[in-house]
């Protein structure tokens, strides 16, 4: 089977699972949303107290365990880390703030679009602009540095966290919060979410599909390998929604579930998310998969995403169907400035080091 078709099928399975999770109870156009799901988990752990978005999403547990198992099975699991962890934490932090102003990670953006929500088209434009900006830094030598081997146990931490979350989800101790209304109360059955999540995790580990990587490769090296996966997600999700979720299919900008029609901030939020995704080397779902196969840097990024999501609600930054908050607008602007300063300083330092190295060789 040729690579394009294989990637399309891998993506297609994820698109189908997105439609199934929507059908079986997840919130509107949120069959899968990595940013929203980490936000829900942050809420369930009491890191924020927005009562309508608190739930330990079994899909995330599934992504981690599925990717972990497949990476062990095919020998990809490798405990590694040490590549600018604190920068990655804050890139993850601001990535999710952009995503929660838009209301969705890049993967949900595709699923929203595939159920007729045209606001996601504005988000996609912003995401592409963000990726384009990020690429300008890559071209000029941006790098967060090489990772090195870490103690093996480091790689097992994320799967262990996933197991602990699963125990909390099943046992429901008093200190875990579960929404009784709103998006946090809308859930596909636990076992179904967990199993489908594991399939998604396994496929993403195997295929390496990444929303940011696919658009980055098109712009940077004119390669469409990963884009076929994204196309698979969109096309199959669209078809599956028309069959399974036809009553929710709504083409237009208004009255979309868990979304708002404020174009400029849908755009700007995803610009921020796009820049962060390229600077991190992957969108939130890709970070989750890497974290599950032993990458401690991606693990730190996931923590940044979770904490950022908690702050997004504590500080009133996250949007809602009512619209965008003033705090959210300010946070997106600050976020864009901060990540550009980070990227600029990294590039400047890298070039300075290169120059010194070359001069050193010349003088030798």
């Amino acid at each position, binding site marked *: 089977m040729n690579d394009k078709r294989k990637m399309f099928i891998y993506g297609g399975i994820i698109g189908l699972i997105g439609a199934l999770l929507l059908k079986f109870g997840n919130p509107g156009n949120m069959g899968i949303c990595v940013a929203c799901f980490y936000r829900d988990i942050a809420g369930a752990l009491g890191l924020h107290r927005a009562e309508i978005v608190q739930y330990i999403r079994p899909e995330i547990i599934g992504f981690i365990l599925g990717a972990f198992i497949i990476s062990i099975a095919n020998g990809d699991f490798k405990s590694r880390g040490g590549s600018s962890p604190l920068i990655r934490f804050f890139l993850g932090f601001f990535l999710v703030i952009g995503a929660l102003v838009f209301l969705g990670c890049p993967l949900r953006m595709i699923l929203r679009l595939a159920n007729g929500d045209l606001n996601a088209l504005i988000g996609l434009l912003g995401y592409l602009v963000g990726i384009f900006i990020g690429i300008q830094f890559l071209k000029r030598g941006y790098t967060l540095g090489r990772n090195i081997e870490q103690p093996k146990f480091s790689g097992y931490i994320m799967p262990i966290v996933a197991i602990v979350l699963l125990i909390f989800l099943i046992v429901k101790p008093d200190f875990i919060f579960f929404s009784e209304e709103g998006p946090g109360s809308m859930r596909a059955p636990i076992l179904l979410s967990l199993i489908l999540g594991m399939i998604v995790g396994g496929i993403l580990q195997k295929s390496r599909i990444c929303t940011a990587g696919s658009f980055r490769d098109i712009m*940077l090296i004119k*390669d469409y390998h*990963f884009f076929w996966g994204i196309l698979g997600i969109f096309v199959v999700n669209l078809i599956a929604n028309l069959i399974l979720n036809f009553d929710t299919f709504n083409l237009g900008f208004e009255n979309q579930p868990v979304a708002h029609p404020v174009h400029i901030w849908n755009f700007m939020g995803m610009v921020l998310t796009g820049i962060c995704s390229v600077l991190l*080397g992957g969108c939130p779902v890709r970070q989750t998969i890497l974290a599950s196969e032993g990458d401690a840097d991606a693990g730190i990024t996931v923590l940044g995403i979770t904490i950022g999501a908690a702050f997004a609600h504590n500080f009133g930054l996250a949007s809602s169907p009512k619209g965008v908050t003033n705090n959210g607008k300010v946070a997106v602007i600050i976020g864009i400035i901060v990540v550009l300063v980070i990227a600029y300083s990294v590039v400047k330092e890298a070039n300075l080091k290169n120059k010194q190295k070359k001069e050193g060789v010349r003088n030798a």
Partner: protein
Amino acid sequence: MDDVYCVVTFHVTQHALIFEKAMKEAQYPIKLMPVPRQVSSSCGTAAKIPCDKKEEILNLCKEKALPIEGFYRIEHKKKKYWF
């Protein structure tokens, strides 16, 4: 897709772009692509090069001090693995 091809990998994306420019100037038929799945589970950028030009290209890299990470020979097996 060819059954056998070779790739050069890089630590930094910019190095791939510098490599591409240098190789095009030297008129080697190379193409940038995502790192093949067989090499790594990462999704960085690699350069596909003809295997018979390996020595020439590696010498040119040394001469011009082009930073590269590794060199791999990729063979597509007939058997298809799904998982």
